[in-house]
Structures are given as C-alpha cells and as structure tokens.
C-alpha cells in the first residue's frame, strides 16, 4: 500500500531506521542497549510528573524564597529591587510576630495533643467487641469528612451568643448564667477554635490507630494475660509499642498540617478579636493581602517552610537511625 511506512528491518529500532532513510550517507546511529532503552523509557514516563513537580511545587517554592529577599508590593509597582534580609527584619520586628508564633505553638500543641488523646481513646473503645461497633465506626468519621468551611461556620453559628444553640443549652442547664461570646473574647477565641479543630480532626487518628490496634496479634495479649500481666501492663508493653510507629507518623503529619492551617481560624475568627487567635499563616495572609507587603509575606512563609522542613528531616533521620539500630 502506497504511503504506508514499512516496518524497519529486523534488529533495527525505529530511530535508527528513520535516520538511515533520511540521511543515507550518515553513520548509522548506535544501537541502544536494553538497559539504556529502559532508562530512556523510564525518563519519558517520569517526565510529566517531573514537569508537574517543577511547575507546581519547585517553582512556587523557589519564587517565594526569591521574593523574600526582594522588595515587592502588590499595589505599588514602583517598589522593587534587592532587599537582602530587610523583609526578615520586618517580620522579626513586627509587634504581632511573637504573639502569632506563640498562638501557633499553642494551637498546634493543644490541637495535636487533644486529637491524639481523643483518637486513642475512641480507637481503644471501638476495638472492643461491643454490639453495634460497625455503626459507631462509621459515625465517628463524620466530623472528618465535613469540609472545614462548613464545620467552621456551623460551630460559629452554634456558639453565637444571640442565636447559638449551644449557648441556649448551657444557659438552660445552668452551666452559664448568661450567653458567652466564645469567639468574641480575647481569652477564649483561640481555645474555642482549637476545641473545634480537635473535634474535626480526631477521627483521622481514630481510624489510623484502630487499624494499628487490629494488627496486634491477639495471642500476644492472651500469652501475657496467662503470665499474669494486668490490663494496664499489657497496654503499656504490648499495645503502645505496636502503636508507636503509626502514632509518630500521625503526630508529625498533624503538627505540620495544624501549624500551617489557615482556613479553620480564618472562617471562625479571622485571627481576632484583636489578633487573639492570629497564627503565623494568618499573619502571612495579612502581610500579603492587607498591607500588600509581598516581600514580608514571603519572608515569613520561608521561615515557616524552613521550620517545617527541619522538623520533618529531624524526624526522618531519627527514624532511620532507630531503624538502623534495630
């Protein structure tokens, strides 16, 4: 059939055949070894993912680092030039930096601790052979599947001193003498958002720890019980060591996710009142979108990125060392 490319001769690869046809006088291209062909094919398959990584992750990160040492203002095109460490100095000398850092530490520590304790307690309860266990396991996941914005708005309305059902119940039950503005007071705003965050996030711990609990061989417990170990001792020497790896991963992931969380606090308090619930991500937003100081926003973002990356690498190498020792 005319016009249809003939198959190359046996033993020749397509590029070699094409090259020979296009330039008959040229030297034949070297035949690639099988390993080289595999490597080339692998590179081709990896290329889209690498491209996505470069465009969507590496470029924005490098751009943030670059802008952190530049003068950049979103609404003032005349601002520009090399800033050196000025943006970092701006952040460190900001009155709100230390309080935001403290709020971030408090918010992260309390959230992760509360989530872990509640998750562990509920996982242990759901691991028991009780009736209706499957239903409870299904129900407990509900807070975690609710979008943060929906959960945040729901709790904001429920906690409202004017119309909130929780305030109404607490007054009726005599817990409060009059409605309390949980999200509007300096001393309660951050704690309230933290409580709601714990409520939403603990189911993730529950299902992860429950899976780890179910993987513990029952004969270990039976043997320990026969040897006279009580419930608490078995929990300490059998259960907890089996939960150690998954617990460390859960805690590390949630420390990072919670510290960089923006949406929950923004939906419920916008960092208020009077910056009482302002964390570092909220401060980054304020630099970028309220004072339009993109340089300072990128400097603080870089500092946070450095902190989180350090935390991850310390954990990672510690885990590797432990594994090597074991």
């Amino acid at each position, binding site marked *: 059939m005319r016009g249809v490319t003939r198959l190359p001769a046996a033993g020749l*690869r*397509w*590029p070699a055949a094409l090259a020979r046809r296009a330039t008959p006088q040229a030297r034949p291209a070297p035949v690639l070894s099988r390993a080289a*062909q*595999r490597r080339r*094919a692998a590179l*081709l398959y990896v290329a889209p993912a690498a491209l996505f990584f470069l465009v969507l992750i590496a470029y924005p990160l490098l751009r943030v680092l670059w802008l952190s040492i530049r003068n950049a*203002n*979103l*609404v*003032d*095109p*005349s*601002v520009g030039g090399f800033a050196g460490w000025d943006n970092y100095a701006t952040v460190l000398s900001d009155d709100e930096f230390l309080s935001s850092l403290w709020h971030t530490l408090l918010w992260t520590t309390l959230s992760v601790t509360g989530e872990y304790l509640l998750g562990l307690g509920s996982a242990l309860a759901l691991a028991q052979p009780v009736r209706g266990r499957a239903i409870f396991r299904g129900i407990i996941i509900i807070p975690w599947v609710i979008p943060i914005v929906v959960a945040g708005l729901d709790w904001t309305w429920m906690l409202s*001193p*004017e119309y909130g059902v929780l305030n109404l119940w607490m007054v009726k039950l005599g817990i409060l003498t009059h*409605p309390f*503005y949980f*999200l*509007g*007071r*300096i001393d309660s705003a951050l704690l309230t958002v933290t409580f709601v965050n714990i409520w939403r996030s603990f189911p993730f711990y529950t299902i992860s720890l429950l899976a780890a609990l179910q993987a513990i061989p029952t004969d270990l417990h039976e043997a320990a019980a026969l040897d006279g170990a009580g419930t608490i001792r078995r929990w300490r020497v059998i259960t907890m060591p089996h939960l150690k790896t998954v617990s460390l991963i859960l805690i590390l992931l949630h420390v990072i996710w919670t510290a960089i969380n923006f949406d929950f606090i923004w939906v419920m308090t916008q960092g*208020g*009142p*009077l*910056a009482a619930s302002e964390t570092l991500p909220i401060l980054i937003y*304020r630099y970028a*979108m*309220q*004072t*339009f*100081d993109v340089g300072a926003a990128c400097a603080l973002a870089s500092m946070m990125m450095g902190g989180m990356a350090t935390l991850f690498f310390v954990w990672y190498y510690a885990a590797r060392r432990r594994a090597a020792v074991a």
Partner: protein
Amino acid sequence: MRWTALLRTSTLPGALLGLFLLLSPGSGQAQSKTVVHFWVAWDPQQADAIAAKKEIAAYEQAHPDVTIDVQNITYDALHDKLITAVAGGEGPDISWGLPEWFGELYRMGALMDLSGFEQHWAARPEIYPNVLKALTIHGKLMALPHYLGIRALLSHADMLKAAGIAAPPKSWAELIADSKVIHQKLGKPGFGIAGTGVRAPQELIMYLAQNDLAVARPTRDGKYRNTWNDDKAQLARAAQVFAFYHDLQASGAISPDASGWGWEEEDTDFALGRYAMAIDGPWMESREAQNPKEMADVEITAPPTIRTPATFFEINPFYVFKATAHPQATLDFAAFLTGREFQQAVHPQNSPRMDVHSDNKWGRDFMTLAASGVVFPPVPLAGITRDMEDAIGRVLLRHETPQSVARWLGQAINRDLRQSGELGSAS
C-alpha cells in the same frame, strides 16, 4: 521498550489532551461577540439584583454584538480576587467594589483614567458634584458612581415611645442617656454598633468627622498624613471619640457582645427589634419585607453628633479597568449602568443621579444627609481600616484608655501610609 509500544501507550493521553484543548475556552472559532467581563457582589434574591439582571439582559438584546459575562462574588472574596486578578493581568473589564479599595486600585495603576469619557458622558450633569469629587484623584475621574450608601440614625419609634423618649437623640450625650433609659425600662440595649468587619471603620470615620477629625489629611507634597499626634487639640478630640465608645459600653447602651458584631449582627438584630437604634443605610428597606412587623416603626434621622453634623457617605463605585481588551464596549456598558433607566430600575432610593430619587422615607430621608457626608481618603486602606477596627477593640475588649488608643491609631495610620508610599511630610 520499543517505540511502537511507546506510541501506542501515548495514544490515549494524547487523545485526551487533544480533547481538552478542543473543549477549552478560547479554542476553536474566534468568537464574533465582544465579551465584557463584569464582576458583581449582589445577593441574587434581592430586588436590586433581580432588576439589574433584567436590565442587563435588555442591554444585551439591544447590543447583539456584546455579551455581558457577569460573575457574582461575595464582597468578602471580591477584594482579594480583584487585587490578585489585576496583579496577574486577569482582571475583569468592569467591577463592583467598595470605596475602601479605591486607593489601592489607583495605586496599582489598575484603573482607567475616565477624564476623556467624562467629557461626553451623558449622565455627567446629573451626578451629585460631591460624588464626582470623591471619585476624582489629582483632577482625573478614576471611577464611576454606582450607588450611595449614606448612613443615618435608624430608630424603632415604638421602643423609644415605650421608654418615654419623645424624639431620637441628636447628640452623643443624648444617645447614651436615652440608651440607658431604654435598657432600664425595656431590658434591651438602646443602641447597636459594629465592632468588627467592614462596617466598624465606616462608623468610626463618621464619629471622627463629627469631632472635626480626618483619618488622614492631604499634605503639600500631594500625599496624606494623620496629624493627631502633631496637634494636642486633635489628639484630645480623637480621645473623645474613643471615650464615646467606652461610655457606650460602660453605660450599657450597647450589648456587651457588640465588640464582636459585624454588619450582619447589626442589621439583623435591628431588623428583629433586639435593640432600639443603629447607624445604618438605605438597604435596610429590604428588611421591611422580611420583618414587616418589627420594621414598621422605623424612623430615619441625622446621626447624633458632638460638634459637627457628619455621616459616612458610601459612594459605591464601578471600577473600570485600564487593561480591558474592549475599552469602548466597556465604557458603553458603564454609561448604561450609570444611565437613568438602569438607575431608576435598580437604585430608585440611593442613586448617585440627582434625577433619580424616591419620595419614600428610604430615599428622601437619607438623601437629605448627602451634604454632610464624609468619605475615606483615596489611599490604600486595608491596613488603615484594620487598625481602626483594632482601635475599637482596644477600647471595648482590652479597656485601654481613650488617650492611648488615639495616640496609637494616629501612629498606626502613618505607619500604614508609609508602607503604601503615601505618607506625606509633617509640615
């Protein structure tokens, strides 16, 4: 791996990519119609939005070569979306916006200079002169008026009557005294304020203007500066304003939770008759339909003052963007939006046109206050308005002294002006 296998395996992704490119916007045949991208922030259920959509549909019918691409975005999200879209070169052709964003968008160089358009703009003679003045920077018209949100004192006359108060208060002292009586006799707060959100600085700028103060004044070098800390008399008057907030709280005139109220709580609680008086705007007419019983007794009067009659004059603008690909079509549409027909249909009570007005109380009583209206200076305001909110919080939540709050706010405003490159010299 053979090339044939590679080609075979890449057929499906290639086909999908081709399909994506084929279906993506802007591909295929060039569109014959001019598309004007118009960003709005309306509540689609409200009468003004329904009327506006009808008018825009009629405009499209009369201009078959033009399509108006309306994107509805809440005010909360519109600011950030506009700023980032404009910075990224993907802004709309024309947009709604708050007057507080005027300085920022101007500073970005995002707004079209409308001086040329103004010369043959049919609506020009009908627009209130002070409205045009407020939208003019350095002699250039940089935005078009959309609607007016003049603020007045709204009172539930029946509640005042029940408390034995004959007429709405005219001074700050009367307001506090009347509110105390209402609280004692009816068990409800007499007055409502916005302690947070966009409404809080709008109310604060009004009280400052009533005490002959400006957030920032123009300087000789063409910039702006807060002058409170340069002048003891001004600082004392600013402290008086924050003392007023303190007294409102200390006397029980406002709810203890008002420090955290935004415009939603202020409007809703007033419409439900949960307190007697508030500084509010003509949009509260729409609450008459939702709460006819509670809103039937509302009276509209000038805001109580201490020295000078003043109110906040929200000149809500249409922003026309310089980067538009279709300047003529956009300006034609802008002329339509400020035209009599559109304004009569959409903003009969609060139009910036002098020939469009309503004789009911929501039109007439508000418009009589237009002459005493004050506006924000045309500088980037995001940091300044946040500091104004914080200043209210420092009085109501942290119980700082009015003097220290006045001093702090003056300094904070100048710091914000410095950051945005708008701080003028002291002399």
